[in-house]
């Protein structure tokens, strides 16, 4: 043993003993420097091929081995290639073998140095086997060298080598004189070559050769040839279709007859490797069993194939040996994959059998089988009609969603996604949302995306969809991508039917009210309130101003992108509500110099808009956005496609529209194609002509930035006429007024007038609503739907058929011209509340125009007050006893600069508090004319445990500050809702009293 041999061993020992990765890499650096010096000493002359001729054969091998060793440890080796090639060129087998192994490791076919070796490799490849009959050294040698060359060629591949040698490799493969060793290696080598440069081989000419090779007695050869066939057939599928019977034949020998040489049994299973390859090959031909019935004749090989698959399905057993079990299940899963690809052409018995098996697998403990069970079931469930079978396992899948193993969780999520449909969407989405709370970061983004898609796809009520997305944002807002919330905006915008838009606006108002909320919430809320805020502006506590405040409180905590959205919303708010203008103007003024381009531009444009355009044009500019174009693939689906690739089960699922979605699309389509709609829109769209001039700036408010879509859709507007925006301010005024006065007009336009008269005794009220037809023709299908909240006990009666009891087929009544329909509502309040019940009026004109007016009845908490007269002492005592955040409600309101607080104003305020809101004034506690204090009892019809009616004592204090031109309203009651309601009504009433 030479001392140098120990050199390599010492080196290895050194590396083994290295305590850290750093120490190891230092040792490697030292060694690399040493070898570099040996290979290129500088003073010695190098040989023509760049190698150092002074190295002995032994040294050269040693250094190359060291380099190889360093390489397999994961370090980069970028020299010594010349020595490797010198070894390959050597005539000695011992050097050649080292050279070729090192070549496979250290070099790739694309390296330029490789070209110098082409001739050597070619000679080695084509070395004629010794046919002298004497099986001695020679033949073995040639054979061995050929193998070395083939193996290296396969490992390094490379275009130049392929060009030079693919013919030789083909020849070796089909040659009769090649040994089995050489054949199997050349088959795989050829496969590698065709993979690097496809279409090297013409399928039609080569298929017969393959057929012949498949009959080889040596199973190793057959296995290698099957690999080659799979590679070739995946490039030219049709060319090799004729080989299906051959493959089925080989497969049935292995499966049905268990005919297999002993050495190729792997834990008693006949060559699982070959079986898998055969099944993979058959998967290329999904139509192979089309029209086949079990036991009904047909092609012999098809029969055989079905039998083989059936046998694999039914006779795979659990085994004690993990290796046997793995091998058998590998075959089984491959057979199921084949069934999946056959799809609906596959005999039903096979599909059902497969589903049953998978159902078993997803509940076993063995993690690999469970993982693959989930994976494969997701594929199988996509076949038409198979999802029912998969849905039975929903509970089991949910368990796997909580597995400790991320791989298993991913698969469970994927499968849940696939089996989700309208029936179980509620449950699955809820479970997923619940799991999201504890899910780890690696899977959250995927979950959020999938939940968003499912919620959209299977929402029977779109309000649930909006709620779900809001939940997503609050649970893991950072993972809610822009495309998800853009989608919510699109959906809400595109579905003007029902109460979705007002629901979304109100929900987001509440969501954005807290001081702290996720920035995405602010974005969605800003957009929604800008668009649909007017639908909820009459609700107490949700006026335009309040909408501004809840949004603006986040102004300083958000980034420029969100600010830009906020600015657009502010512009819309200030356009709708006079009182918002003084609030919005300073915001714009401050941000005109913002360093962010977008923020700056929007501010400047919006604030100078009124000077630049006519009022109509401004109106138009700030009108709500038209519906979005429905794309074939939503942004969410595209995202899924990006992350999972084209052939994932989830992507296929996401791109097929669900039943609910189709219904929704159909509904929208019907409404769009309804001819009266266009006339309907005409009066509102008078300024349509000017749209062109302003459209470009209008577009930037689309969160999507999808400008073209907007332009194209500019003309398609919501299909049912709602309340025109121009009427909103007047309507809000009428509503506020009615809250504190016994009768008045709630709504009026050219068609309809709605009048209200209401009176109250204690907890009970009687409200009469009159609907007068002001039009020249009758109004048909006239229907009124009154919301019946939990806190009111309601009885209603009215003109026949006017009431909409919630069933869609009620025809409604007809209101003749210049006549009235009436509705009488008797209510009893049972609990404190802070909003007003909604009343929805729908009708159709003679011309077929459809109208839909969401209104609110002026039925607010203060209606049920009964005044209480307290002496100052008692008032102050109660006032103090009701301190605390739950009981007190306070708000400061700045008046618009135009109005002025004088004593006459204060009288009107006192009047509205006493007569309108039915509070007893407590004169003694108001030392100056600038305060008004009052007390009242809120009466409810609910009984306490002793059978007495429950009442809530209420105190209110209004303080004016004429200098600051502001009012402060403070209310204290035992119930937070009461405090809030009284404060809200007070504020609106005070504002109203200004005029």
């Amino acid at each position: 043993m030479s001392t140098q041999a120990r050199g390599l061993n010492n080196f290895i020992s050194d590396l083994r003993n290295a305590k850290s990765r750093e120490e190891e890499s230092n040792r490697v650096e030292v060694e690399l420097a040493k070898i570099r010096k040996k290979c290129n000493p500088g003073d010695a002359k190098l040989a023509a091929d760049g190698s150092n001729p002074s190295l002995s054969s032994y040294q050269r091998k040693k250094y190359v081995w060291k380099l190889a060793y360093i390489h397999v440890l994961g370090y980069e080796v970028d020299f010594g290639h010349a020595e490797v090639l010198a070894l390959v060129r050597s005539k000695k087998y011992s050097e050649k073998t080292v050279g070729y192994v090192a070549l496979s490791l250290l070099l790739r076919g694309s390296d330029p140095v490789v070209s110098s070796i082409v001739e050597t490799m070619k000679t080695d490849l084509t070395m004629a086997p010794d046919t002298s009959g004497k099986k001695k050294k020679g033949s073995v040698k040639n054979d061995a060298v050929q193998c070395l060359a083939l193996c290296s060629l396969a490992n390094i591949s490379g275009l130049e080598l392929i060009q030079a040698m693919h013919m030789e490799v083909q020849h070796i493969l089909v040659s009769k004189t090649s040994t089995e060793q050489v054949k199997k290696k050349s088959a795989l080598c050829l496969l590698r070559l065709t993979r690097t440069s496809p279409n090297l081989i013409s399928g039609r000419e080569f298929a017969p050769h393959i057929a012949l090779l498949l009959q080889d007695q040596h199973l190793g050869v057959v296995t290698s040839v099957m690999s080659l066939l799979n590679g070739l057939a995946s490039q030219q599928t049709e060319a090799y279709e004729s080989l299906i019977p051959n493959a089925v034949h080989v497969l049935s020998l292995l499966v049905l007859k268990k005919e297999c040489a002993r050495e190729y049994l792997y834990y008693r299973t006949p060559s699982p490797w070959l079986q898998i390859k055969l099944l993979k090959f058959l998967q290329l031909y999904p139509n192979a069993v089309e029209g086949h019935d079990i036991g009904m004749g047909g092609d012999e090989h098809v029969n055989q194939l079905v039998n083989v698959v059936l046998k694999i399905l039914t006779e795979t057993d659990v085994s004690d040996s993990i290796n046997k079990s793995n091998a058998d299940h590998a075959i089984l899963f491959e057979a199921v994959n084949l069934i999946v690809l056959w799809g609906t052409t596959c005999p039903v018995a096979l599909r059902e059998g497969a589903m049953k098996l998978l159902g078993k697998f997803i509940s076993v403990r063995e993690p690999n089988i469970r993982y693959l069970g989930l994976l494969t079931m997701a594929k199988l469930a996509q076949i038409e009609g198979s999802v029912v079978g998969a849905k039975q396992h929903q509970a089991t899948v949910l368990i796997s969603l909580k597995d400790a193993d991320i791989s298993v969780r991913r698969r469970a999520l994927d499968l849940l996604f696939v089996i989700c449909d309208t029936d179980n969407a509620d449950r699955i989405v809820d479970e997923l949302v619940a799991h999201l709370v504890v899910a780890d970061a690696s899977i959250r983004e995927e979950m959020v995306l999938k939940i968003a898609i499912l919620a959209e796809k299977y929402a029977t009520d779109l309000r649930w969809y909006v709620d779900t997305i809001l939940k997503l944002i609050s649970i893991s807002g950072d993972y809610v991508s822009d495309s998800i919330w853009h989608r919510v905006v699109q959906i809400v915008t595109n579905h003007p039917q029902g109460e979705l838009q007002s629901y979304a606006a109100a929900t987001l108002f509440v969501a954005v009210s807290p001081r702290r909320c996720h920035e995405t919430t602010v974005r969605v809320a800003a957009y929604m309130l800008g668009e649909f805020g007017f639908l909820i502006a009459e609700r107490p506590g949700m006026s335009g101003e309040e909408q501004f405040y809840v949004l603006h409180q986040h102004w300083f905590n958000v980034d420029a992108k969100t600010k830009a959205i906020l600015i657009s919303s502010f512009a819309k708010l200030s356009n709708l509500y006079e009182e918002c203008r003084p609030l919005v103007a300073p915001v714009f003024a401050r941000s005109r110099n913002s360093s962010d381009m977008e923020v700056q531009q929007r501010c400047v444009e919006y604030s100078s808009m009124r000077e630049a355009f006519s009022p109509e044009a401004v109106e138009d500019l700030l009108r709500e956005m038209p519906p979005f174009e429905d794309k074939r693939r939503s942004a969410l689906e595209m995202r899924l496609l990006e992350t999972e690739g084209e052939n994932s089960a989830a992507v296929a699922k996401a791109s097929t529209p669900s039943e609910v979605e189709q219904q929704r699309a159909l509904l929208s389509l019907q409404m769009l194609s309804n001819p009266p709609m266009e006339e309907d829109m005409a009066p509102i769209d008078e300024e349509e002509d000017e749209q062109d001039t302003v459209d470009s700036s209008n577009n930037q408010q689309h969160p999507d930035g999808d400008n073209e879509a907007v332009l194209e859709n500019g003309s398609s507007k919501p299909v049912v006429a709602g309340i025109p925006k121009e009427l909103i301010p007047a309507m809000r005024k009428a509503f506020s007024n009615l809250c504190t006065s016994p009768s008045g007009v709630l709504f009026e336009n050219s068609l309809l007038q709605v009048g209200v008269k209401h009176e109250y005794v204690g907890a009970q009220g009687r409200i009469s609503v009159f609907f007068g037809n002001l039009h020249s023709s009758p109004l048909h299908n006239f229907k009124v739907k009154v919301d019946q909240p939990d806190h009111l006990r309601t009885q209603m009666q009215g003109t026949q058929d006017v009431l909409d009891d919630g069933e869609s087929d009620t025809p409604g009544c007809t209101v003749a011209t210049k006549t009235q329909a009436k509705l009488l509502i008797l209510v009893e309040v049972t609990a404190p509340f802070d909003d007003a019940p909604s009343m929805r009026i729908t009708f159709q004109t003679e011309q077929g125009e459809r109208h839909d007016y969401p209104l609110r009845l002026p039925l607010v908490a203060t209606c049920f007050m009964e005044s209480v007269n307290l002496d100052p002492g008692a008032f102050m005592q109660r006032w103090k006893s009701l301190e605390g955040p739950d009981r007190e409600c306070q708000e400061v309101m700045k008046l618009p600069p135009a109005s002025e607080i004088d004593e006459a104003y204060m009288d009107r305020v006192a009047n509205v508090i006493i007569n309108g809101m039915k509070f007893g004034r407590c004169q003694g506690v108001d030392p100056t004319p600038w305060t008004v204090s009052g007390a009242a009892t809120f009466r409810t019809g609910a009984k306490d445990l002793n059978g007495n009616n429950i009442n809530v004592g209420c105190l209110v204090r209004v303080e004016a500050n004429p200098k600051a031109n502001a009012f402060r309203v403070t209310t204290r009651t035992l119930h937070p809702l009461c405090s809030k309601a009284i404060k809200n009504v007070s504020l609106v009433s005070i504002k109203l009293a200004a005029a």
Partner: protein
Amino acid sequence: MTDFDQDTLTKSKATAAAACGWNFIVLMSRQGKIRLSEFFSSYTESQKKRILRDIAADVLPRQAKMCNIIEKGEYKFVYRRYASLYFIVGAPVEMNELIVLEQIHLFVEALDGYFNSVCELDLVFSLHKSLMILFEMFIGGMLCESNRREVLQQIVEAEELVEQMTKPGEDTSSQLDDGLSFQEQFQLGRKPGARGPRGNR
């Protein structure tokens, strides 16, 4: 179904069938030391570094009861643990995971046969032998010969060939195959002769 979908469907089937070879194999100790690595597909150095880092981060911390598959986008890690040594294979997504597991085992069995109860030290000190066995069994990452006896015979024949062709006294590559002495083995805490396989997991 549209043309577009048909196209992608065919393509996906095609890749599924073509996927029968490993992209790479890495042998890593529990401590994160690499014992062997061979990349059959072409990767850049930085890609390789990333893969090796990912293996250390994703595979080593996993518990025994977890499954042996980790999805990594276009490929996946399929791994098997023998005593303190992990055999990690990078396989295309479409490849059958269980059969990869058994291919790993087949390789281990072949090593076992050659070294007569293989252990980590054999692999470390006779790396060239392990590599020859690897290349004999897997060509370009694809299983070439599953018959263990035939693989070993090839290796032995090649060794004989080297010895026959060298003059006495000249170096042979087997000289490099200088395993540990008995004493060294003992120092490393291994009982001489008791090198039984630790089995899977």
